[in-house]
């Protein structure tokens, strides 16, 4: 119990959440969010995350989420205010909306940095915080590649962007004072992208052969395949000191998961959303393993710094997710 990661043995993540339990948590918090006109939703989000973190065990100890709902509420209000001014200005003073868009664009590296810091810092395991040290200029560089290089090369630069993004995220993440390391090369990402492109051709062919009927299942299959390729690439090349990670998701498993989830959510008019969330977490987490060949590992906590939540919400709204 006291020592993390015995030598040699792979350790599996364990997920103890249950759909019936989470359904009740979900609906009560959704109800409170609706009745408070959305104000409570910040608290609901934290509760949801605390439930999932607190139900995820690694070697007997659970993860913990400590995000402050008030900070998240402030972030949401700011995002809402900027968005409202922007959409009103679009019709009344188009120039102002342009200026506003440029300002937000200029602040993007800062927003993303804050989002990643907030998420990492508020995640704990064994009372030791995760952290993110990436600099604004590094993030700016990745965004520049995404905005300029990818369109200019008609998408051929995309795997490069993916590799760069993942490397930036992993290499600047830390657990306590120990940094994660990343060994995948840009070439690895190009090989992965080749496989996914071939699968895409299969997806097109399959959709055409089945006269469009197979569109949704084939799309899910393609998505599952791409996700498995990228997740394996990311995790098998990530290390934390001596610890190696492995991701045992399979294309068939992920496809079945998504297909049944989509079916259940649609047929239940959204009532099975919490059930789908639990199923997804269980599948994905319980197939993650850690292995420490050299023996038990011990990590030390790092000196702490405080981060507000503005970035957290802004990053979420902009759909910019580095995805752990």
């Amino acid at each position, binding site marked *: 119990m*006291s020592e993390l990661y015995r030598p040699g043995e792979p350790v599996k993540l364990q997920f103890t959440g249950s759909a019936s339990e989470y359904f009740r948590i979900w609906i009560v918090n959704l109800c409170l969010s609706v009745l408070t006109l*959305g104000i409570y939703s910040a608290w609901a989000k934290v509760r949801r995350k605390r439930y999932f973190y607190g*139900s995820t065990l690694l070697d007997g100890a659970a993860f913990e989420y400590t995000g402050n709902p008030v900070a998240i509420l402030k972030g949401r209000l700011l995002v809402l205010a900027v968005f409202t001014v922007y959409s009103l200005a679009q019709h009344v003073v188009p120039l102002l909306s342009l200026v506003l868009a440029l300002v937000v664009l200029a602040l993007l590296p800062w927003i993303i940095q804050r989002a990643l810091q907030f998420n990492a810092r508020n995640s704990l395991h064994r009372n030791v915080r995760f952290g993110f040290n990436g600099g604004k200029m590094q993030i700016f560089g990745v965004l520049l590649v995404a905005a300029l290089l990818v369109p200019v090369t008609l998408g051929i630069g995309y795997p490069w962007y993916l590799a760069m993004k993942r490397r930036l995220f992993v290499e600047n993440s830390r657990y306590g004072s120990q940094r994660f390391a990343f060994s995948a090369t840009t070439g690895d990402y190009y090989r992965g992208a080749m496989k996914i492109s071939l699968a895409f051709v299969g997806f097109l062919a399959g959709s055409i052969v089945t006269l469009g009927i197979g569109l949704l299942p084939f799309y899910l299959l393609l998505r599952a395949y791409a996700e498995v390729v990228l997740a394996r690439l990311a995790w098998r090349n990530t290390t934390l000191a001596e610890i190696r990670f492995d991701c045992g998701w399979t294309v068939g498993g992920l496809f079945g998961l998504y297909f049944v989830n989509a079916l259940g959510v649609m047929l239940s008019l959204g009532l099975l959303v919490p059930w789908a969330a639990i199923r997804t977490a269980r599948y994905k987490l319980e197939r993650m393993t850690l292995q420490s060949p050299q023996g038990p590992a011990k990590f030390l906590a790092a000196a702490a710094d405080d981060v507000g939540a503005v970035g957290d919400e802004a990053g979420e709204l902009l759909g910019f997710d580095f995805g752990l």
Partner: protein
Amino acid sequence: MSGLQAVYFDGESTDGQPVTLELDARQLLHVRGTGCGIDLAWPLVEVRVSERIGASRRRLYFPDGAQCETADNDAVDALFEGRVPAASWLLHRWESGLSYAVAALVITVAAAWVAVVWGVPALAKQAAFALPAATETYIGRDALATLDKLVLQPSKLPETRQRELRELYARMTSGIQGAATYRLELRQGGRAGANAFALPAGIIVMTDELVELAKDDRELEAVLAHEIGHLRQHHMLRLVMQNSAAAVLIAFMAGDLTSLTSLAAAAPTMLLQASFTRDFEREADDFSLDYLAKRGIAPEYFAAILRRLEEKKRPGRKDGASDYLSTHPSTRERIERARGKI
């Protein structure tokens, strides 16, 4: 209170120690290691406890930054009985009972229903009437320019006929309060077929195809009155606002949906749009029928043009007219309403 099993983490390293927590008579919480030398005591009032959320792990926070993790939620509750804030305790109770879940579900659906069906339209109405005229003019001009580029062509009607229609329209609006700023735009419909619509900022578009479909100018007068009815109520603007507001609301409530499931969440928005539209059509129909009554024009003229539009849309003669009618109340219902006003 005997023996709460937990794991102690000092916050400085990942090493954990199995411990037993015990409260003594002086309200001191003793933390004793089962296999190691930990032996601490904190006054219970200084120990913070995390909220109980389902069966997820619970934490006790000590003032020095150390914590204990345990799965024994009931024992933690017993230990802190009377010290847990009411809100946190109540929340867990609500999240535990099935009857509370059912109540929450009913309240959520009802609140969402009220918000979308009543709240959003009321807000959109307020906003549409309060919007500065300059803004509406801008939106209306933009909408017409877009339609001109994508669908509509300049009218091919003879110059004399166009003048006749404009005069008819001018006669109509001179008697309607607030209609002085509305203007009629004649266009060839193209894909839009026999059609008429009211854009923001008082722009009424009527297509050549509709003009040709009418057997009597009084039929056109009925249609134009219907469109003026839309304009007076800022219907187009409200529709746009309502649809975006409803979409935002649904997206917000479905908060943690993944991209796949949000696809399913788009369906109610489309159903709502159709229902919003039908309400507005009825309002505009009522305005038109009132107008006809005041001018001494029989409502049959309105019924007649509606019937002819409906015939155009029948299968086998499918053309652009169908999309004009699909969002309207059933033509039979409208014709019957027109008759009912006799």
